[in-house]
Structures are given as structure tokens and as C-alpha cells.
């Protein structure tokens, strides 16, 4: 008797299809372009819609009003979010469900700032500080919750038009006790890195799809450019980057180990950044315009690559873990 091991279950396939359809129907390309051109719009509305679909409460136990699913399912929905460039602090808001009041219901937008990051960090950055209600403050081993308004932070001109960034000047630790102590912060960092990696994989697949579609349609020198080996091989390498990254993300969702998550984050970051660049190369001049979506993928991929675990951190962790 055969049994399916490391494959999506039918339920997982249905979930993926469901979220894909929801995102296409409610947050399609027109909505995305509107958000790009007037940035702060609609995050709260989006949160309501996503909450209704169970996006934030996905991993909360059914007894706590959640959907009761696991990290595998969380990874799938974040992959779809990454594919369509869904903006907002999705990862943190989902992880905050159960920790921050209103997060599961989508009434609270939650972001995070990690005060325990390594070098190369001028000061910690916080995303979507203006839109957020609460901010998770990770400090050493603990997680505390702060009202977002109390953050002393100055806005940057974010490279990603869909991810407003603030530079934290001074972060007074909140007076209250931590909402999660000890392993809480470590676990949150790991899970955030994994869900971020899932978004990167979605983006890497999204730019591959875009490149393939464009290469089939765009004609130059009397044929679709996808008929030229140079373009063909660019696209093939995009798939070669995306597929191992995807299975690494799925495997990390199943095992949850720090090692597997570092593998996933490292390869997913690389796949997202390099696929976006290759997609831009396939698009040529047309990809260099603001109206094309390629640059939004690249910029978001740059932002995510610096979130939760950088390549340097992942490589050092993985070297030690050999």
C-alpha cells in the first residue's frame, strides 16, 4: 500500500487554491497599483478581509477561535501572499494571533522590532509603523508588546513603495512583563524567518511566471524572445533556483528546526532576489518602468532578505551545524 509522504495533502491543495482565488478577487493588480501610487491606503480594510478568511487565526487552536492548522498551511498562504506582493506586516500579525488582542480577528495590525540583531544594522528598522496598532518588541530572549504610537522612530524613504520603514531612534522597553519569555523570542524569530522565506518563494515563483509569460509573448528579431536560448536558459535557472527553495521551505515547516529554517531562508532569499533580477533582464527596458511590477518584487525581496535572518547569519549557523 502506498502512502503520500512529502507532498501537499488534498486539504492543503484546497487551501492554496482558496487563498489564491481570494487574493486574485480582492487584491488584484489594480488594487496593487492603487496601493503603490497612494501607499498608506487600505491596510485596515485588507486586514478585515484576510481575517474573515482566517489568515491571521490560521494556527490558533479551534478552541481559541482559530482555524487550528499548522505551520505547513501557514507557509502555503504566505507563499501565495508573496506571489502577488500582498503588502503589510502579514507575518508578524499572524504570529501575534493569541499574543496580541485583536490580531487574530484582524482588528489589530501588528508589526515588530528586533533589538537583538547583529552588525551591519545602523539601527533597527520597523515596517508599517504608521499603520500598526501594536509592535512586538523582541529584546534578548523576551517578547513584549508596545502600542505602535509610542515608538520613537523616524521615517525613511523606503526602497519598497509598499513597505514603509521607520528607523527606531530609542526604544523604551515597555513597562509590563513580557508576553512570551525565554524560548518565546527565539521561536518567534524562527517562525518569522520561515514565513518570510515562504513569501520569498512565492515571489520567486511569481517572477518566474511573469518572465515566462513575457518571453512567450514579446517578439524580437522575428520570433518570441523565449525562443532564444539565452532567454530560455535564464528562465530555466529561475526554476532551478525556486524549486529547491520551495521544498526547503516546506520541509522546514514540517520539522521546525533552526537548521532547516536557515536552509529555507538562505535559499528563498537568494531565489527571490535573483529571480526578480533575471525577470527584469527578460523584460528588458519594459521592466525598468515604474508601471511594471518586476521592480516591486525585487525591492520587496531586498527588504525581506534583511528581515529576521540575513544570508550571513544563516550561513554561519549552517556552518556550525554541519
Amino acid at each position: 500500500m502506498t502512502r503520500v509522504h512529502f507532498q501537499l495533502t488534498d486539504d492543503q491543495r484546497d487551501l492554496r487554491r482558496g487563498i489564491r482565488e481570494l487574493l486574485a478577487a480582492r487584491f488584484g493588480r489594480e488594487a496593487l497599483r492603487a496601493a503603490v501610487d497612494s501607499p498608506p491606503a487600505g491596510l485596515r480594510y485588507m486586514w478585515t478581509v484576510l481575517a474573515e478568511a482566517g489568515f491571521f487565526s490560521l494556527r490558533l487552536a479551534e478552541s481559541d477561535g482559530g482555524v487550528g492548522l499548522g505551520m505547513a498551511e501557514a507557509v502555503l498562504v504566505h507563499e501565495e501572499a508573496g506571489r502577488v506582493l500582498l503588502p503589510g506586516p502579514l507575518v508578524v500579525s499572524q504570529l501575534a494571533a493569541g499574543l496580541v488582542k485583536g490580531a487574530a480577528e484582524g482588528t489589530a495590525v501588528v508589526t515588530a522590532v528586533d533589538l537583538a540583531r547583529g552588525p551591519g544594522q545602523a539601527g533597527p528598522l520597523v515596517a508599517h509603523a504608521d499603520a500598526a496598532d501594536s509592535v512586538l518588541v523582541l529584546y534578548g530572549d523576551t517578547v513584549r508588546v508596545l502600542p505602535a504610537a509610542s515608538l520613537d522612530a523616524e521615517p525613511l524613504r523606503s526602497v519598497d513603495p509598499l513597505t514603509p520603514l521607520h528607523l527606531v531612534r530609542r526604544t523604551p522597553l515597555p513597562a509590563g512583563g513580557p508576553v512570551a519569555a525565554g524560548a518565546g523570542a527565539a521561536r518567534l524569530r524562527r517562525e518569522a524567518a520561515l514565513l518570510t522565506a515562504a513569501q520569498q518563494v512565492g515571489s520567486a515563483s511569481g517572477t518566474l511566471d511573469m518572465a515566462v509569460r513575457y518571453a512567450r509573448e514579446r517578439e524580437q528579431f522575428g520570433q518570441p524572445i523565449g525562443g532564444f536560448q539565452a532567454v530560455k536558459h535564464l528562465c530555466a535557472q529561475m526554476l532551478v533556483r525556486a524549486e529547491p527553495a520551495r521544498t526547503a521551505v516546506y520541509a522546514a515547516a514540517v520539522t521546525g528546526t533552526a537548521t532547516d529554517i536557515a536552509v529555507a531562508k538562505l535559499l528563498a532569499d537568494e531565489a527571490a532576489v535573483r529571480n526578480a533580477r533575471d525577470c527584469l533582464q527578460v523584460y528588458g527596458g519594459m521592466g525598468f518602468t515604474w508601471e511594471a511590477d518586476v521592480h516591486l518584487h525585487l525591492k520587496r525581496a531586498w527588504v525581506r532578505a534583511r528581515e529576521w535572518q540575513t544570508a550571513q547569519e544563516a550561513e554561519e549557523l549552517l556552518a556550525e551545524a554541519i
Partner: protein
Amino acid sequence: MDLTCTDAEEGFRAQLRAWLAAVLPTLPPKPSPDNWPGRRAYDLGWQRRLYDAGYAGLHWPVDAGGRGATPTQHLIFLEETERAGAPYVGANFVGLLHAGPTIAAEGTPEQRARWLPPVLRGDEVWCQGFSEPDAGSDLAALRTRAVRDGDSYVVSGAKIWTSHAEVADWCELLVRTDPTAPKHRGISWLALPMGAPGVTIRPLRTLAGSTEFAEMFLDEVRVPVANRVGAENDGWRVTMVTLSFERGTAFVGEVVACRRTLGQLAAAAKENGRWDDTVLRRKLGRLHAEFAALWRLTQWNVSESEATGGVPGVGGSVFKLRYSHARQELYDTAAEVLGASSLDAGHEWTLDRLSSLSYTIAAGTSQIQRNIVAERILGLPKGR
């Protein structure tokens, strides 16, 4: 998504481990690389032990004398034998993994009865006569001709990259039986007895200095028509069918071996001080990610085969592209760990580095693989 095994699978693994622990110490010493008769005997001896223990043809269909194991069981088998340091399939490679499966799928009952049991029992060795010097990547452009003469084909031509040719009993041979047909349509599959008059073998020295491969020259060699598997001129399809036997497991042992090598590299770097070089250490960390991901991709492909009952097919090209590059990088990094000793061809890793140069060439160059991925998976058009 699940990465655990069933109780039955774990039972299979435990039983296999116990058997390996018992049998491996009883093996004779490994023959030297140049001792071809010794290598034949060693490899066949190992196959006979597998046969006696019921592991022979694990992934073959039951009606071909195999165990009809699931892809996952096959993965476990390959993983455990590699981990235990069991002998490689060696001289049995073509028989067990290509010619045998082809005969099992396309042969007549008589052909199956004649050729399959000796492969499983470790009695006969097969080699492969597909590649030709002038065909190269364009395998189907092969020109070795077979002309029908009564009950025989008269075969003339030259083959290359035929491994174990010196010690093989049989060769699975692709020949052109219709020179006027389009190139994929005029090919037939023959079982060539290596002792037939007119067969000449010349060892081919590779850049690694070894004579793992040979050239084979065929000068009016008579092969009985009864040795043809499948219909005349249908040989291309016949030989492609065989890939379905592999079901995602093709690189299991190699990925396990690479991960072991990576561990040895890290240990050696800690030993000789190179570990303190951040650039090298981070490269090792990156390789950890590469091979961990390739292992997950293997598990994914095997699970997919198991779920669909189907062939991983062109997905194998994605794997091979990533794997061949990663393995070359592994040995380039090994050279950095070794420093000046990387120039010592007496070192295992240096020889492996030389061999690894073929990974992006053999069995379809990376260029060909990218074409396959682009056209057959991504649906990009064929160019002018």
C-alpha cells in the same frame, strides 16, 4: 506534508540496517581500481549477497523477479546502503538500472526469462552502447548501422563512454536500422553478446587518469534478430520507457555521499585551521544549505512518484542542474580546505574534483538540460 516514515517503512529500514551491519564485515577486500576482473567479481559477489538476502531488484516489478518496492522503500535502501558504506552498484549498474528494466518493460517472456534472472543473481554484467563520438549531445544522431541478414543483424560502427565494457557479458546497443527515417524513428535496441566476433574494446583514459570508460568498435558483428527488444525502429521509445523505473531515486546515494563529504570537509578545516577563514566557513555553510535542499527535493520527488505512480520525468532535469553545479562547488571548496594539498592527485578529494568535472556534461550537458526545462516544463517555444 509529512516527513516521517510509516511503521512498515521503519521496519524495513531496521531490518536492512541489521543485515548490513552483519554482512559488510564479511565482504572480501576491495580490489584495486585497475583490477577489472577483480572488480567484476567483487561487484557480482555483492549482488549475489543482496539476492540471497532478498534485496535484489528491490524496485523491479514482482513479475520481473523484483520486490516491487515503493519508491520510498527504494529511497531508504539507497540511503542506508550509502550510509553504511556498502559497495556501490558498480558493474551491475547497467543491468540493474537500465538494460534490465528495459527488458522487464518491453521484452518478450523468453527475453525476460533469459536475461533478467542472471542480472538479479549477480551472474552477468551488462554495459551500455548508446553514445557515439560524432553524436555527442545529439544522442539520436547515432550512426552505428544494423543491416538485416536472415536471422541476424550485421552491425558496424563505433560507441564511446561504455563503462565496464572489458568485463561485460552483454551490451544494450542502440543501432540504426532505418537510415532513411527521421532520426528518432530508425533506431532499434539490441542485446549484443560481448564475445561476438568483430567486437573490439579500447580503454578510454579520462582526464582523471582512470580507464573507467572504453570505446567499442563493431565490425560486421552478427547479432541474432531474437536479441532485439521491442519492434524494429522503435528502439528510441523502448529505451526512454526505462526511465520510469527510477522514480526520483536516481541521486539518493550521491546526495548522501555529498553530505558525508561536507562533514569531512568541515572536520578537516577545523583540523588545519582553515575554519577560521570566514569566507571558507560561510561557503561550507552555503553548501550545507545546498545539499540539505537537494535532499528535501529528493524526498519530494520520490513522494510525488509514490503518490502519482508516475515518472518524475523532466523534473529530474531541475534536480540534475542544481546538483551537478553544487557537487562541483563542493570539490572546489574541498580544494580550498586542502590548500596546497589540493594539487596532490593522491588525495581522494582531488580525484573526486577531477571526476566532478563531468557532472555538467555527462548524461545531458547543463545546456541541454536547460533546454529541456525551458521547453518541456516552462513551455517556452523552440527557437529558429
